[in-house]
């Protein structure tokens, strides 16, 4: 599940809300002003910004942060679903789930590569994730307690992610937009599979139906939180929208998602855990109940049900894999055919 979330987007770089694109503390000279004019014109014309193009430092920093967090979400997001691979109740479902988790690792790889076009490296980004200096989507801090959670994640979490991400296919930064085109195709497929899993449970035995309803009850509100804080509390959105990194506000996307889910829930034969959901004829949209923003803030602060477990597992996999990565580097250094062999200097010492 690719879940770049607005809660991450709004944790934007310091200073982005200031004059567009000036590196902090640098007096713009005439050449910079000319480059900025070219950049602004390209964004205004809906042209793509490419890695070799000049771009404001704040734009670069915002993108690195957002793309890194998006990549981290793919990697951490493998955990709640991988939790059920060994217990999947049929071989067909097991194959679907394995393929999905594999896709997520692949999405992480695309996104780290796309972020690297901005002058960072996967290693650096992973170090920041492990050190708690970069975030991942808050949704993955919730536990998968039953098999139906795998379906609820597909339907709701991937559904929310797609609602957020389809506009990113038109994002102003070319490598990110192109990665999103590929990722959204696969995500849509995952979402349909999640829906179909829930449908099978909903139409199954009484116990299966109850399992599906319980999962939807637990995942509904956290999925709505994936769109981030309400617009009046989302101070950095404006800059991201001006740069055409972001195309719609958090509340617009959240509303769109609710409007999509209500009829789908009916078709599934499941209810959404919100007594205030009703069609508003005047607005032509659904009204819905208040989100518990205190819970959202707690999860962001690290106090969600699985924050500690998720990051610990990620760190452990990385630390326990260090000797394997060192071995690959040492082997490459020994067997390289280039005479200069600069990689040899980068082989880490093993314990």
């Amino acid at each position, binding site marked *: 599940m690719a879940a770049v979330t607005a809660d991450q987007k709004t944790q934007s770089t310091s200073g982005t809300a200031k004059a567009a694109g000036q590196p902090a503390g640098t007096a713009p000279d005439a050449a910079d002003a000319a480059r900025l004019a070219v950049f602004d014109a390209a964004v205004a014309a809906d042209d793509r910004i490419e890695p070799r193009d000049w771009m404001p430092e704040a734009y670069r920093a915002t993108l690195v942060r957002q793309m890194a967090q998006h990549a981290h979400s793919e*990697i951490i997001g*493998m*955990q709640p679903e*991988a939790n059920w*691979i*060994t*217990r*999947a*109740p*049929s*071989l*067909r*479902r*097991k*194959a679907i789930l*394995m*393929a999905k*988790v*594999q896709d997520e*690792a*692949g999405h*992480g*790889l695309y996104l*780290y590569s796309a972020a690297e076009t901005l002058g960072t490296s*996967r290693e650096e980004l992973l170090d920041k994730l492990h050190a708690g200096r970069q975030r991942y989507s808050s949704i993955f801090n919730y536990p998968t307690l039953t*098999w139906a959670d795998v379906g609820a994640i597909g339907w709701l979490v991937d559904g929310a992610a797609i609602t957020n991400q389809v506009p990113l296919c038109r994002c102003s930064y070319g490598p990110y937009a192109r990665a999103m085109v590929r990722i959204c195709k696969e995500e849509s497929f995952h979402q349909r599979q999640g829906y179909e*899993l829930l449908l*099978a*449970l909903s139409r*199954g*035995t009484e*116990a*299966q139906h109850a399992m599906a309803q319980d999962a939807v009850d637990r995942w509904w509100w956290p999925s709505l939180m994936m769109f981030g804080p309400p617009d009046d509390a989302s101070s950095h959105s404006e800059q991201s929208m001006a740069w055409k990194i972001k195309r719609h506000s958090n509340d617009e996307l959240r509303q769109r998602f609710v409007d999509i889910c209500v009829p789908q829930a009916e078709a599934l034969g499941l209810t959404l855990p919100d007594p205030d959901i009703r069609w508003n004829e005047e607005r032509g949209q659904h009204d819905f109940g208040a989100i518990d923003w205190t819970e959202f803030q707690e999860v962001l602060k690290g106090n969600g049900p699985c924050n500690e477990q998720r990051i610990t*597992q990620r760190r*452990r*996999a*990385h630390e*326990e*894999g*260090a*000797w*394997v*990565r*060192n*071995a*690959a*580097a*040492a*082997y490459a250094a*020994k*067997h390289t055919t280039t005479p200069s062999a600069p990689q040899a200097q980068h*082989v880490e010492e*093993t*314990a």
Partner: protein
Amino acid sequence: MSAALALGDDALVLSHRLGEWAGHAPVLEEEVALANIALDLLGQARVLLSLVGDEDELAYLREERAFRNLQLVEQPNGDFAHTIARQLYFSVYQHLLYERLAAGGGEFADLAAKAVKEVAYHRDHAEQWTLRLGDGTGESHERMQAGLEALWRFTGEMFQPVEGLDATGSGVDREELESAWLSSVTTTVERATLTLPTGPRTGAWTAGAGRQGVHTESFGRMLAEMQHLHRSHPGASW
């Protein structure tokens, strides 16, 4: 015992073990590679088990003593070197076997011809990692050697008779298969600067035991996890 059951169980059980790596691999590329291999094996298992009966009944409702997989594939993952040693031993065997089944024109020829392409990739993956770990750092060399040693005693079972796979019909000559396997594994191990283990490859407890439904202790626990949900909802469909 049906040969389809034996080959299907090998693929099913090894796929399950590889699935346990998800989210724990040493590098992202290996998350993709291990899941990819697991998926290939699961696909093979589904085709093979379907030749015998209902794939889910066979996977989820048989008890330990009715499984016919090799003890090698049920061995716990251990560290990455241990997993690679298991992959090396098994994928070289499976590749050589499927090549022969594909060429032999028996009942598994079509299935083997399709699977052999996947297994060639699995074999390459295992051989490449054996080289990297064996000829990498001091630590990786030691770990890879330890993995090879620990699993060596399970390798003889691969060459025990399997009803329906011997000379009659399928074109597999076990002795020829065994010598091809030994030669291939020896070459890779030596290129990786490692030493071929010298202990026995079969023993009173391992020779043919998995094929007869006698397994090692961790296997029952693996099945308990795999089958729990399915067994908790008798008759349900998913």
